[in-house]
């Protein structure tokens, strides 16, 4: 199969979308962005390739295992695959922690080594339940999974050995950053084979086992050829790609949204670091756009600060805000003062839900101005970016659009719209392929020193 790849390197997550030569979406992947952009891109792409192969696998299983429950089988296989991947990563983590301990000086006592080994072994044992136990996971990103598991395992170990928790965690903290930015090839075929072995024992009949193994072999060895690549994203100016393989995120978001909702004429994208209002024509070509200025007021990051301040998960804010009966009026969406404003409101006795509702409204008011600045809202408005998953934000947007542009506007918000930029990039990659000037994503071995994070600009206040 020949595919094209689009990658959107965002400030929080990196997304990849694969299209086949006919422009059909065949895979998508996501990972957390990290200090090494190349690795983030490679992992997102690998994740997308995995999803593409699983998609093919699902179809094959529907034919080959129609007598069993193919959906259930596929789900178990997928979970087992994730487990194998996790165990591989855990192996890399253990190796790296060993190196850290070797170089660790006086802190790396025998007792600490023992504690860490016990914790890691505990993590390996619990992994099974995490992936195959049927419970949900908050995140699939290795860093998140491993951090949570290490904390859970290390605390009792520390208590038993009479160590401080900090004695164990420092080596983890160092190693996880290195493991995360290390480029390791995804051995899909062997991971899948191991996953299949793992679940095969539970299968009812030898025939089913045999059919599963055959499908797995077939899919794992199916050649997938990357024919073209385009990258985009927040870190665009430092993207590790040739210039010809880079497209502006504005163009990609506009085009991706239009591809998914062809009636789209206006796109609102609220991401971690910026907000974009984009107008597109009937072909998905951007005709005008506006971005927030250098100040991140009213962007996703603002909600992140609020969540931190309230000690809540980002995903919990929207549902709480929706419980509000009377939104508090808030005029400032300055990230710098977000915490202070919140504390003051709470101290005045305002309800948390009402404050959150007010904050969501303030953010969306700002977005409305940007929309108006870009030329208003026409026909269909497609809301994309991380914030569009927030139900309170979507609700306020609906109200404000109705108030300002009449009730006839279709509002699209897709739960997967964080992939819009990557989808647009993939469409450009397909253009490049058609025009006979494709580029490929070639990831070099990572440099030792990760690039410095962009310097924070001083905030000079805002209106």
């Amino acid at each position, binding site marked *: 199969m020949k595919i094209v790849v689009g990658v959107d390197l965002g400030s929080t997550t990196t997304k990849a979308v694969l299209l086949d030569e006919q422009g059909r979406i065949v895979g998508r992947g996501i990972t957390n962005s990290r200090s090494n952009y190349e690795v983030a891109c490679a992992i997102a792409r690998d994740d997308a390739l995995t999803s593409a192969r699983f998609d093919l696998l699902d179809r094959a299983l529907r034919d080959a295992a129609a007598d069993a429950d193919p959906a259930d089988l596929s789900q178990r296989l997928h979970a087992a695959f994730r487990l194998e991947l996790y165990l591989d990563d855990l192996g890399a983590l253990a190796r790296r922690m060993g190196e850290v301990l070797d170089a660790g000086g006086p802190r790396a006592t025998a007792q600490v080594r023992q504690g860490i080994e016990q914790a890691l072994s505990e993590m390996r044992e619990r992994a099974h339940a995490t992936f195959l136990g049927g419970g949900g996971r908050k995140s699939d990103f290795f860093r998140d999974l491993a951090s949570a598991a290490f904390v859970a395992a290390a605390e009792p170990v520390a208590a038993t050995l009479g160590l401080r928790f900090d004695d164990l965690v420092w080596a983890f903290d160092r190693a996880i950053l290195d493991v995360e930015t290390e480029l390791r090839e995804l051995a899909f075929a062997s991971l899948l084979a191991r996953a299949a072995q793992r679940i095969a024992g539970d299968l009812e009949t030898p025939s089913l086992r045999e059919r599963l193994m055959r499908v797995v072999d077939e899919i794992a060895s199916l050649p997938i050829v990357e024919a073209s690549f385009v990258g985009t994203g927040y870190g665009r100016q430092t993207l590790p790609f040739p210039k010809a393989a880079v497209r502006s995120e504005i163009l990609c978001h506009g085009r991706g949204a239009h591809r998914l909702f062809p009636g789209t004429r206006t796109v609102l994208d609220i991401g971690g670091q910026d907000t974009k209002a984009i107008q597109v024509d009937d072909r998905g070509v951007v005709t005008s756009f506006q971005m927030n200025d250098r100040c991140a007021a009213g962007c996703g990051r603002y909600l992140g600060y609020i969540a931190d301040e309230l000690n809540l998960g980002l995903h919990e804010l929207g549902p709480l805000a929706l419980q509000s009966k009377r939104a508090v*009026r808030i005029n400032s969406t300055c990230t710098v003062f977000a915490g202070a*404003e919140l504390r*003051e409101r709470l101290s005045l006795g305002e309800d948390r839900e009402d404050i959150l509702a007010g904050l969501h409204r303030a953010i969306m008011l700002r977005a409305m101005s940007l929309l108006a600045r870009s030329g208003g809202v026409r026909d269909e408005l497609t809301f994309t970016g991380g914030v569009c998953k927030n139900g309170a934000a979507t609700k306020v947007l609906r109200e404000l659009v109705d108030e300002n542009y009449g009730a006839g506007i279709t509002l699209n918000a897709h739960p997967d719209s964080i992939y819009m930029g990557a989808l647009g990039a993939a469409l450009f990659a397909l253009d490049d392929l058609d025009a006979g000037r494709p580029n490929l994503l070639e990831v070099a071995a990572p440099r030792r020193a990760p690039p410095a994070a962009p310097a924070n600009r001083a905030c000079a206040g805002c209106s």
Partner: protein
Amino acid sequence: MKAPLAPAPRDADPARDVLRRAHALLEDHGLANAAAWKRDHPGRLAVGYMPVYAPRPLFEALGCLPVAVFGGGDRDVIRGDSYFQSYICHIPRSTLELGVSGALQGIDAMVFPAICDVIRNLSGMWQMLFPDVYAAYLDVPQNFRPEVGGAFYRAELERIASDLVARGALALDPERLRAAIVTENARRRALLALGDVRREEPWRCPASEAYAITRAGGALLAADHLALLGEYLAAIALRRGSPKDNVRVVLTGAFCEQPPFGLIKSLELAGCDIVDDDLQLGLTYIEGDIDAEAADPLGALVTAFLERGAATASRYIGDAHKGDALLARVRRARADGVVFAAASFCDPALLDEPMLEAAMDEAGVPYTSFKYAENTGQFHVIREQAGAFSDAVRLWESAP
């Protein structure tokens, strides 16, 4: 204005009714009043004007109702915001929001006095966005020689007058202008009387009330404002109470963008008696009577502007010493200190402020400073700051 009515001290507060009427005018920027006036005066024009000073007697003499359009307060701003970058002050946003939302449909003309580049450019934006509305930039002279700046200013007034006449205003008649000047002078004296009460018995007249009663005049003919002022002065004379142990401050900010009521109240709650302010400086911009007997009343209006215009950030003061005028206000008000409040991103007020502060330092007058926007919703910090300031002033005064 969504600010609550000024709290009446008691149910029987004699000023409650007049305050309610004043607040009602502010709530909708005087637009309902303007609409009613236009119904009663078919064919006549309502002339909107922006801060700081506008020649209201001239508009009245032309048979127009002058309506102060001093921003949209804290209403939600969406489209207005879409025309301005984040580093521009707030008043043009909310004013445009009023315009594009159709709230100003009853306003037949808009006058933009020369006070800063933002308001200046807003005049051009108005011309582009509302081609059917007469939008005039009123360039006021910074040269105060009669034969130089005076001649120019007179030509500006004549130009705007004739443009308004062409749109249905009454012809410029000296008799009507003299009459308008007489009323304007009376209104100014009533405002001075209000100032006297604030200075002598601040407990009778909180600044937030004085502000509402004064600002209501922006929506009224001078004669009607005069009546409102008279009613309020009579009502507060009946109030009973006693002096509070507050510090006396002058609030200054070369105000164009208006601070929210909450801000003024916060200062009062923090223990400050605001005994003088320049919140509505346009209404008392001419210091002293305009000559109502002059054979050439337009010339009298011009002369008053040249010779007796208030020293504020948008006016060039030539060889005069920056801060002298403020110091005189402080002395007259027997104030303990000055509160500087500047609108965020207001170049004139913010650039003036360090010079004024230096003058206060030199004279040993304590002060405190902060920024605001017309839609500021949080006063906690301001209250803290003003509270600390008033405590400090008290300590400083009681020090041996």
